[in-house]
Structure formats: structure tokens, C-alpha cells
């Protein structure tokens, strides 16, 4: 990592400023060669801001502010310069090309953050949460990403790890000092403590559902038989609620996607094909796919036409998605549904007039809050990768209990506990192999 890397750190498009980031041992001399101002970046001892111009030979290129930061207290832990150019793509691109000409190379995706990790500035969990901060779609999502970035999960995992090692060392006392009059810790007590740790980890695992929803959005398909007004409702929700601009492409062309921010919960609305029994082969495939999507949903919005009596297909859908939200649409046309429980449960809406939308909003919000509660101060598990490691650790701890209870082979229990601790170390990156790192950091955008 002796080479110096550079990239444009701001998104493409017109804006007030763009930033070119440079990091590495030659970051400062490199920028010094193309910068003219009252002072040279080389003169900055710790950190400072310089005003001046970037030059290509004798040609002025852009008027800039330089943020010069010396190692080790920088984002990457290396010398860094951030060049704040005028907005727009051309100025930044020109400056970047000059930086590249004078000794830097183009950074790979996530390379700045990877360097921060490799330089010991942040652990792996925190490095990964940087990505979550960048990608956060809503306030709640941002909140848990920031919390993780500040180290909440790292601290939690490290504490658990210490406790496991502590338990292993209690066993070691029994093994290494059999004749000394150190009273051995009763096996039951150790088993109880291991069980306590397992429980805490199981609880932590449960938070992953919540963080996933906050990161990837709650999947909320709008379903129902054809012509009940699903698309109108879909469009109404997108129009009336806070929409999220997302670059995540839809996964299937049969299903329309739209994102809304529902009080901090990112919600991915799906407008699915109408569900009905069909002879047509192609349509049947579409329906099957819609059903599949709907079954994977977090919360289902089942739309019924209030102006007609219920059909058999309606009843089947009500049975299938019994825990979904029932929407009685087209109330502007009058209500002809007779079933009392449906009338009670259903939310009366008119996609045409917008009537009942507030109630739908609050019911949906309550459902989201119940299913995915976010308590302040809670530690969230934010990556599937962590679940694998935690599952392995729990597996080891269960084995340890087994060994302690059945055989009293403390050395094997100790081996299992140590393995469990190793698995937890994988989470924070105390133990890493190169492949894992490459994979993690390749997810990042260039410039981060």
C-alpha cells in the first residue's frame, strides 16, 4: 500500500462543488506539484485548508480549496488531500486526471475505507457500516448505521468475546492447576453462563431482521385479483408519501417497484400482477411469480373491490394472506361487501379520491413498528456475514456445553469456546483472510 490513490468523492451531476480525494504517502507532494497558492501543501504540519488554483503547466484549471491532512489522524490513516473543485463533472475530472498524472493511481471501489481498516483506524464492522451510512434510505436506517459506525456492535461483540475467553480460562484453571487448592468453578455455573451468552447472541440475531428492513426496505406487495385498483393504489401511495429515489433496479419486469419513506421505514411497494385462475400459460407464470413475491413479503396489502361482493378468488386470497392488511378500495362507488369481519378489518380507501389514505398510513406504520421495532440504544446486527459467524459461535458453545455435561472433557469444551471466540473475531476483522476483505470492500463506490 505504498502507492497513492485518488478518486472523485462526490456523485456525478451538477452541484456546487466536487471533491477529489487523494490518499497515500505521496498525496501531499503530488498535489503540491499542480497547486499554486500562498502556501504549499508541503508547508502544512498537521492539517489545514489552502486556497488557490490547480494548474496544468502554465494553464490554470480550476479554483480550489485544499484540505490537507497528515497521517495518522485521517480517514485512511495516511496523508490525505481533498481538493474541493467547482461543481460539475468536468472540473473534477480534469483535476483528477492531473493528480493521476503526477503519481497517484485511480482508487478501486472502497479502497479508501479498506485502507482505513488495514491501517487500524476502524474495525471491519465499522468499515462496513460506512457503506450503510452512504446507502441509508431513511432516517431510521441512518441512525442504526451511524450507531454501528460509532462502534456499538463492535463493543458488544468484543465484550461477548471477552466473556467467552474468560469462561475458557476458568476451565483452564481446572486443567492446569489440579493440585493447587484453587476451588474449581462448578461446571453448572459455567454451563449457565454459556447459556446466557447464547441467549444474548440469539437476541442479537433477531435484530438483523430489523436492520435488514431498514437497509433494504420492507417488502410490501399490493395484491388482489385483477381490476380491484391495485395500480391506482400503488400510484397514489407513491405520489402522496415521501418517495425515495433509488438506483436499485427492479428484479423482475412483471412487478413494478416503488419506494416510500414511511416514518423512517423504507418501504418497497410492489405492484403485482392481478391474481386469478387462468388458462393462459404466460399469464399463469406471471400470476405464479406474483404469488411467490407476495409470500416473501414483509407485509401484504390485499386489495378488495368494496363495490362488489366477494368472489371465491377474494376469499382464497384472504385466507392465504390472513395476516396482511385488507384494503377495501373503491368506496366512492359504495360498499357491497357483506361479510362482517371483512368490513371490520378492512380499511376503507378510495384510490380515486385519496380518501382513507391517512388511516392506511397509520395502520401500515403500526404494523412496521410492531414487526420491526427500533429501540434507542439497541445494538443491531447489520450484515448477513455476522449471522454466519454468530451461528458458528453458538454451535461451538452448544458443543462446549455438551462436552461439559456429558463427559467432563473440559479441554474439549475449552477448545469449543476458543473456536467460538475465533468466530466472533471474524466479525470485527481481528481474523481476516484476504478473500473476505476483497469481497467486502468491492461493494463500495469508488472514492469511499
Amino acid at each position, binding site marked *: 500500500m505504498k502507492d497513492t490513490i485518488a478518486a472523485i468523492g462526490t456523485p456525478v451531476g451538477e452541484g456546487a462543488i466536487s471533491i477529489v480525494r487523494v490518499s497515500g504517502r505521496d498525496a501531499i507532494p503530488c498535489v503540491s506539484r499542480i497547486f499554486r497558492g500562498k502556501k504549499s501543501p508541503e508547508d502544512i504540519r498537521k492539517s489545514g485548508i489552502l486556497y488557490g488554483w490547480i494548474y496544468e503547466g502554465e494553464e490554470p484549471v480550476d479554483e480550489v480549496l485544499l484540505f490537507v491532512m497528515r497521517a495518522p489522524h485521517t480517514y485512511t490513516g495516511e496523508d490525505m488531500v481533498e481538493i474541493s473543485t467547482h461543481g460539475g463533472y468536468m472540473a473534477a475530472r480534469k483535476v483528477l486526471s492531473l493528480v493521476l498524472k503526477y503519481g497517484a493511481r485511480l482508487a478501486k471501489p472502497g479502497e479508501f475505507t479498506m485502507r482505513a481498516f488495514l491501517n487500524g483506524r476502524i474495525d471491519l464492522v465499522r468499515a462496513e457500516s460506512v457503506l450503510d451510512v452512504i446507502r441509508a434510505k431513511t432516517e431510521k436506517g441512518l441512525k442504526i448505521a451511524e450507531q454501528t459506525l460509532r462502534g456499538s456492535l463492535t463493543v458488544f461483540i468484543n465484550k461477548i468475546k471477552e466473556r467467552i475467553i474468560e469462561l475458557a480460562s476458568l476451565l483452564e484453571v481446572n486443567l492446569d492447576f489440579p493440585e493447587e*487448592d484453587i476451588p474449581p468453578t462448578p461446571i453448572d455455573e459455567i454451563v449457565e453462563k454459556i447459556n446466557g451468552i447464547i441467549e444474548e447472541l440469539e437476541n442479537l440475531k433477531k435484530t438483523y431482521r430489523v436492520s435488514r428492513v431498514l437497509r433494504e426496505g420492507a417488502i410490501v406487495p399490493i395484491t388482489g385479483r385483477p381490476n380491484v385498483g391495485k395500480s391506482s393504489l400503488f400510484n397514489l401511495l407513491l405520489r402522496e408519501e415521501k418517495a425515495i429515489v433509488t438506483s436499485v433496479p427492479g428484479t423482475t419486469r412483471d412487478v413494478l417497484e416503488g419506494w416510500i419513506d414511511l416514518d423512517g421505514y423504507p418501504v418497497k411497494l410492489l405492484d403485482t400482477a392481478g391474481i386469478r385462475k387462468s388458462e393462459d400459460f404466460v399469464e399463469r407464470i406471471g400470476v405464479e411469480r406474483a404469488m411467490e413475491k407476495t409470500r416473501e413479503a414483509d407485509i401484504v396489502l390485499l386489495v378488495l373491490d368494496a363495490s362488489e361482493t366477494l368472489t371465491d378468488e377474494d376469499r382464497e386470497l384472504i385466507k392465504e394472506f390472513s395476516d396482511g392488511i385488507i384494503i377495501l378500495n373503491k368506496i366512492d362507488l359504495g360498499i357491497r361487501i357483506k361479510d362482517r369481519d371483512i368490513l371490520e378489518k378492512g380499511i376503507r380507501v378510495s384510490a380515486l379520491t385519496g380518501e382513507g389514505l391517512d388511516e392506511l398510513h397509520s395502520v401500515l406504520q403500526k404494523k412496521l413498528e410492531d414487526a420491526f421495532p427500533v429501540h434507542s440504544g439497541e445494538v443491531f446486527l447489520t450484515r448477513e456475514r455476522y449471522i454466519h459467524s454468530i451461528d458458528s459461535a453458538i454451535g461451538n458453545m452448544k458443543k462446549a456445553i455438551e462436552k461439559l455435561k456429558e463427559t467432563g472433557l473440559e479441554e474439549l469444551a475449552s477448545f469449543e469456546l476458543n473456536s467460538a471466540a475465533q468466530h466472533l473475531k471474524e466479525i470485527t476483522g481481528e481474523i481476516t483472510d484476504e478473500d473476505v476483505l476483497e469481497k467486502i470492500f468491492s461493494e463500495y463506490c469508488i472514492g469511499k
Partner: protein
Amino acid sequence: MKQYDVIVVGAGHAGIEAALAAKRMGASVLVLTIHLDMIGHMPCNPAVGGIAKSHLVFEIDALGGEIGFATDKTGIQFKMLNRKKGPSVWSLRAQVDRADYRSYMKKKIMESVDVKQGEVVEILTEGEKVIGVKTKTGTEYYSKTVILTTGTFMQGLVHIGMVRFSAGRLGEPPSTGLSDSLKKLGFELGRLKTGTSARADGRTIDFSKMEIQPGDENPEHFSHRTVEFNPPQIPCYLTHTTPETHEIIRKNIALAPLYAGVIKGIGPRYCPSLEDKVMKFPERGKHHVFVEPDGRDTNEYYLNGVSSSLPEEIQLKFMRTIPGLEQVEFLRPGYAIEYDFVFPTQLRHSLETKKIQGLFLAGQINGTSGYEEAAAQGIMAGINAVLKIRGEEPFVLRRDEAYIGVLIDDLVTRGTKEPYRMFTSRAEYRLILRQDNADERLARYGVKYGLVDKTLLEKVEERRKRVDELLKKMKRIVVSPGKINISKPASLFHILKMPEFHFEDIYKFLDEEVPHDVAFRVEIEAKYDGYIQRAIAHAKKLKEMERVKIPEDIDYSKIRTITMEAREKLSRERPETLGEASRISGVSPSDIFALYVYIKRKEEE
């Protein structure tokens, strides 16, 4: 003047193994000792082995060392500790006849190598190479290599209460010039403390008030060379301190040199004096006291667990509050001793010093405690001194190969601040580093370097074959529930894996004679099934790391991606492989990863 291949300074447990190993490899060896009659003396308790230490003894034995064989010959009681736990932590311990052991070792050394009594005061060097040593009387001896095994002798200072005097051990002169000579050569020295307890007159002990601690009924032995083995199994006795004992100690604590601030050296945390136990664990009402016979032809008893450096009369006073010791008379008082040691991070894994070529250090001089730890370093230093002369690659055992590897690696990469004692928990590959497979792990090295007879390796390989065949056979034979107490049909292997079954239970289904040493290993491997494989898989990862060599000319100051602290440590310790680097304290995994990336990139360039 005769030029030796190897000069060994000191004839304790490290010195003996060093000298004999070098001799076995064909080197000419001179041993210089401060006291000719004290070769192989055990200044603390008269016992060899014990938890993790026995592992070292078995390993030394597989490398042709003497400690195991001498213990078998002169032992008076053998006992397997930790029997109730898994086989990886079983540890053999022997009470030894102290005088017999000494005379066995003296004879062995005298018939094997040249020995002279003399106090070495100076290391002779030429440039950065050792060329010999000089004694206090001015005689110079020349050699290609020198192994220092000075034990507690360098600047030794004995404390008994407020009385203190220079001594190497109680009753023996200290070594006074050598520390300065080492300092002049640029070595950094530190100070440690250790202690031992009083020896009681057996005629004044009331054994009827103590619990008898017999040896094993069918005792096992240490050495593969031992053929006839019939130890007398003389018992030890167990008693305990009382609240009165503790009270006396508390009252007189100001007279303990450690607590009075007189002792500057750091003592062993794991082998504390009774003063330490009483002050640090005030809630404990009593501590064990093992009363161990010193030998067959003596009335001397070692009082294990009550080492003390309080004034002699206080020692006697508190000792007489212990059941069975009410009338006790001392033959020698307990004492503490401070001595110089060399920070072992100044050594290579071969135990050669980094600064002076051909100079090796082994034993307590490297900050360890224990006869077995000393012997382990001794044999490795002896072997490596000869390899050095031959210009061959040093013999270094990895952490997954031997406790010896763990011991030396810990010392030279992490260093130590207190007397280092071996524990099974220090060995991360404990499950595969057992006493019972020490020969399987190390005999091939013993044979390779000409330290043991080829037949040992043949024997080991034959046994391995037998074990493997039996394990295979046991997986094939399935037994139904009626024949043995199981709930559904299972293979013999599976049955043996269950905690409640032992080899005796399934023996009848095998329909063949199985010797004890095979049966015993079959059971271990069945019980540890899965774990051994996992441990080996772990070890493989380590091997990969160990294999990444760090270029000798690496300039850490140029690797900016490594933290300042790690850069400093790495520049100072100059590890040879990435594995070593990873064990240096202050070097984090991310430093290692950065270093790895740096080395890889360098290679690609």
C-alpha cells in the same frame, strides 16, 4: 590450547541436556560448572513432570534427552495427574531421589564430555562472534560456540528475612562477572525472583495427622529407553495451613523482603510464596501443603506450597501451626533468590543470541522457571549449536509440533516479565500435543539428528500402523444393543467415542490381542475424534502464515501502513516469518495483514 566445538557454562538441567545433545551429534564438548558436585541438582522440590511439564519431558525424551530416563531411574514415586480429565492434559509426575538423581547425572556427564570446575566471568568474542570464555582464575577456553545455562547464579542474591547475601543457591557461590560481560556485549538484562520452601526433619513430622498421597498402582514412566521399571512408590503426604498460620504471616509481613521492598525482581505468579498467597487471597482459610520425601537415604522432607523468605524463626513459627508439623525442626530454611536474566527477545528461535554469533542461552537465564523448561531449552540449544557449526539450518519446532516450540516461541517473540512456567493452556494445539504422541511427533527429528536410535522411529511407525488398522476395523464392526449397553446398533468406534465406554468394554469384540500402548492410543483417538482433525486444520493455517518469510532486509520504517508501535517492535525484534510477527505483542492483526500485503507486493515487483 584445545579448541572445543561447544562450551556449556553451567551443569543444571539445561546445561546437561545441551552438553549431551551436542555430544550425541558428535561435537567436542566442555562443561564448566561452578561446583562439580552439584551437577543435576534440584534446588526446589524433588519432582520432575507435572501438568504440561511432563509434556516437555516426553518431548525431550523423543529427542534423545536425559531427563526422562534419569527420572525413571531415580524416581521414588510416579503418579499420573488429571486422570479424570481428557488425555491431552494427563501429566505424569515423579518424585525423585534428589541425591540419586545428582549422582546419576554427574556420572553421565563425566563419562560423556569434558568437565571442569570454574566460574566463567567473561565471554570472549571476536567482532560479533563468540570464541570462548574466561574463568575467574584467568584461564581461557576456546570454542566455536558457547551455551550459557547459568540458572539463578548470575548476581544471585539470597534473602531470608532481612538477612541477605550473595549466592547462586543456598550454600553455593554466585556468578559475579558474567552479567557485566553480557552487558558489555550489548545485552539487556533484567532481574527475577524465585523462592523455595524449608526442608523438614522427618523425625519431627507426625504423618498420622496428614493424608497419605500414594503413587499410582500401575505407574507409567517417562522414557522410551526405560526397560526395567519398578519404582518403590514411596508416598507423599498432604496437610494444610491454618488460620493461625496466616495470622503469623500477616503479623510479620513487614519482615518479608518482597513486602519490605527489598526484593526488586519479579516473582512467579503461578508458584507464589506463602506470603503472597496469604496477602493476595485473604478470603482463603487454608492452603495445601504437600510433604514430599527427598530421597531414600535421607530424613529430609520438602514442604511443597509454603515457600517463604520470612526470617527463619518466623518460618518455623508458622510451620508449627500446620497439622502434623507441630514439632517440626528444619534442616534448611526456605529462602528467596534474586538473579539476573537476559530478556529472551534478544534470541533467535534457535536460542542463539541475535547479537553474538555462536552464543546460545538456555534455561533460567532466559526467564523461565522449572527443571523441565530448562532442559527443553538446553537440548534445543545443544542441537542448534552443532547445526550452527555445521552451517546447517537451525532446528526450530513449531507451536503445533511441540510444547518445546510453544515455550521457545513465547520466549523469543513475546518475552517474559516473570519466571515463565509451562501450562497446557499456553499450547493452542493442546489436543494434538499430548504426552502419548510426543514420540510420534518428534522421534523423526531425533533420528534425523542422530540423537536417538533408529529403532525408536520404527517402533513408533509400527504402533501408528497398528492404531490406524484397529480404528478402521472398529468402524467396520457393528454391535447390536443386546451385547453391550447401547440403545441402537453402533460401530465399535462409535461406542468408544461415547464417554461411558472404554477400550476394555469393546475389547472382546475385536478378537485379537491388543497391546496396552496401542489400546490406549486407540481410545484417545476415538474420544478426540473430530477435534484432532479440527486442530490439525487450525494448525495448517498457522503453517501457511509461518511459511511467509519476511525478507531480512525489510525496512519497517518505510511501511507506512503499519502502526508506529508495531513498526518499532518489528524493527527491534526482526521476526523471521509472518507467524512470528503475529505473536509479538503490540503488533495487531491489521498490521500483520498490511505486512502480508507489503511482502506480497514486494515479491511481485
